[in-house]
């Protein structure tokens, strides 16, 4: 059951109603029941009849639950460590076996997300910075809470425990804010992403018949497709959760406003970045190997370089894991891993040179023009990575990039070629207008939540905006080949 389907909205409405009529004490149990029910109806399970996949999250939670309790109760470092290692091997092993080694077994929905969420909890207990949960059912809800099962965010136990088990009274403001956020997510996903997908699919699937600008149009379209799809999904997920009174951490903060790639990764998939930094990167830097490395190198290359080499080597491992986590094949390892490592490392190494250039050309780094240049640069660098992400194989991506440089054909912008990528002119106009609205809201959002500012406006204006957005989504969303507004409700809402 996809979260953009009509059935999901019905399911959600029923769940929301029941959630606020049952006693507060029963709410977490109810959410657990709903989460497992949702899990059982996920497409992976429905398509194969493989109901047994529910045992994967049940097993992972059981392993983490037992290990955390043992770690919490014993002072013996050896036992604590053994329990930690066993549970980590079990969970990571399960994740790798199901998701990456592709042994013909079914990977359950959300496995990469709930695995990290659970391991984060376990590490916090091990490091003695987080509390332990003695109720298996409650920990199961923490791991399998259905909004986060879809595609994150990766949550921290300390942030969730009171919200999840505490019980919530119906709060009009929270519920309406949640629903508004969902509509905004549907706007990104159904209006923008689905349209961008048409162009991206056409060009990536037939890149051999295009050269020059159409290739770059396809790459730009895919960049927007992926971003609005993922960020839209997050809006829907955070909105759903807010309706239950449970505030989840933000996963995106306008990544394309970032002025360099490091900043981009602090704004894109934020909870994954935080997780990997805290539970992989820092512990890695504190291993004996990485602690000794700068001391060994210091004599040969100097203190500063020694530090840099150490950090960059540890980062290489970090980015390899990020890439691998995204898909397990080389195109993902390059697209969202090593290429970004290369960007960051070369950026740092060339920084002294950049400083010199900026001085020679008297560039004001805080001028609007320069900031715009930096943001465009971020977009282009990320876009190149995403060409690998979307292509079937690495050679395909390289050939496609080659074709992009093989012709210079600006005339395609004027001779109607633009309408041959699968969207006619009216669809293209809708896509562009929507992108402009999206971009404007993103920039405005930096000054504070639009919803809160909207709240201060008068009631007529407020509802006019909301209805406009709602109808915009209903009428223009979910583009498909048989698209028409009347068919929308009956036909295009597929489970």
């Amino acid at each position, binding site marked *: 059951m996809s979260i953009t389907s009509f059935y999901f909205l019905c399911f959600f409405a029923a769940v929301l109603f029941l959630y606020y009529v049952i006693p507060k004490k029963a709410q977490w149990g109810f959410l657990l029941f709903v989460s497992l029910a949702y899990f059982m109806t996920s497409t992976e399970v429905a398509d194969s009849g493989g109901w047994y996949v529910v045992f994967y999250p049940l097993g992972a939670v059981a392993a983490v639950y037992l290990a955390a309790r043992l770690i919490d109760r014993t002072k013996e470092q050896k036992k604590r460590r053994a329990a930690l290692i066993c549970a980590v091997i079990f969970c990571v092993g399960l994740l790798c076996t199901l998701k990456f080694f592709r042994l013909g077994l079914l990977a359950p929905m959300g496995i990469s997300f709930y695995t990290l969420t659970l391991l984060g909890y376990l590490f916090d207990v091990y*490091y003695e*910075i987080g509390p332990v949960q003695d109720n298996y059912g409650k920990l199961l809800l923490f791991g399998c809470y259905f909004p986060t099962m879809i595609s994150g965010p990766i949550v921290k136990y300390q942030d969730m425990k009171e919200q999840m088990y505490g019980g919530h009274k119906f709060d009009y403001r929270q519920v309406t804010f949640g629903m508004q956020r969902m509509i905004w997510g549907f706007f990104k996903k159904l209006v923008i992403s689905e349209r961008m997908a048409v162009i991206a699919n056409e060009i990536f699937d037939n890149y051999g018949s295009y050269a020059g600008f159409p290739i770059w149009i396809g790459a730009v379209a895919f960049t927007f497709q992926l971003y609005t799809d993922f960020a839209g999904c997050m809006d829907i997920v955070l909105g759903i959760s807010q309706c239950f009174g449970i505030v989840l951490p933000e996963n995106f903060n306008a990544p394309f406003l970032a002025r360099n790639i490091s900043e981009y990764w602090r704004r894109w998939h934020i909870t994954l970045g935080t997780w990997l*930094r805290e539970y992989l990167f*820092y512990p890695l830097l*504190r291993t004996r190997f990485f602690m000794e490395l700068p001391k060994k190198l210091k004599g040969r290359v100097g203190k500063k370089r020694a530090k840099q080499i150490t950090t960059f080597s540890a980062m290489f491992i970090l980015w390899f894991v990020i890439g691998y986590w995204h898909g397990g094949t080389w195109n993902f390892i390059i697209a969202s891993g090593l290429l970004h490592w290369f960007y960051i490392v070369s950026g740092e190494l060339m920084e002294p040179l950049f400083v010199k250039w900026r001085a020679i050309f008297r560039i004001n780094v805080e001028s609007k023009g320069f900031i715009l240049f930096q943001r465009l640069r971020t977009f282009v660098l990320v876009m190149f990575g995403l060409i690998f992400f979307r292509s079937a194989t690495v050679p395909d991506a390289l050939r496609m990039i080659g074709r992009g440089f093989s012709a210079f054909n600006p005339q395609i912008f004027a001779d109607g070629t633009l309408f041959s990528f699968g969207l006619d002119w009216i669809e293209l106009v809708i896509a562009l207008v929507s992108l402009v609205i999206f971009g404007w809201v993103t920039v405005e959002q930096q000054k504070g939540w639009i919803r809160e500012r909207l709240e201060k406006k008068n009631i007529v204006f407020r509802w006019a905006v909301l209805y406009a957005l709602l109808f915009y989504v209903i009428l223009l969303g979910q583009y498909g080949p048989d698209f028409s507004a009347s068919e929308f409700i009956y036909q295009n809402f597929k489970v």
Partner: protein
Amino acid sequence: MSREEVFEKLNEVFRDVFDDDSITVNDTTTADDIEDWDSLEHINLMAAVESEFGIKYSMGQVVTMKNVGEMADIILEKLS
């Protein structure tokens, strides 16, 4: 070792790690007070402090330490 001696040694470590001889730390010094003290440098700093005093922080202490005062408290506790 007295608390003053710990701070004296900490000053040296900080000056060495951040390459800045004007640094003087006290109980309330935090990462906000020293420009280059970001999360990555924090890990380097911890390593330098550990080797100076011959102690080992736990990962939990590394990430929850709030200021230099707390850092010194843990050092004194481990040395005693």
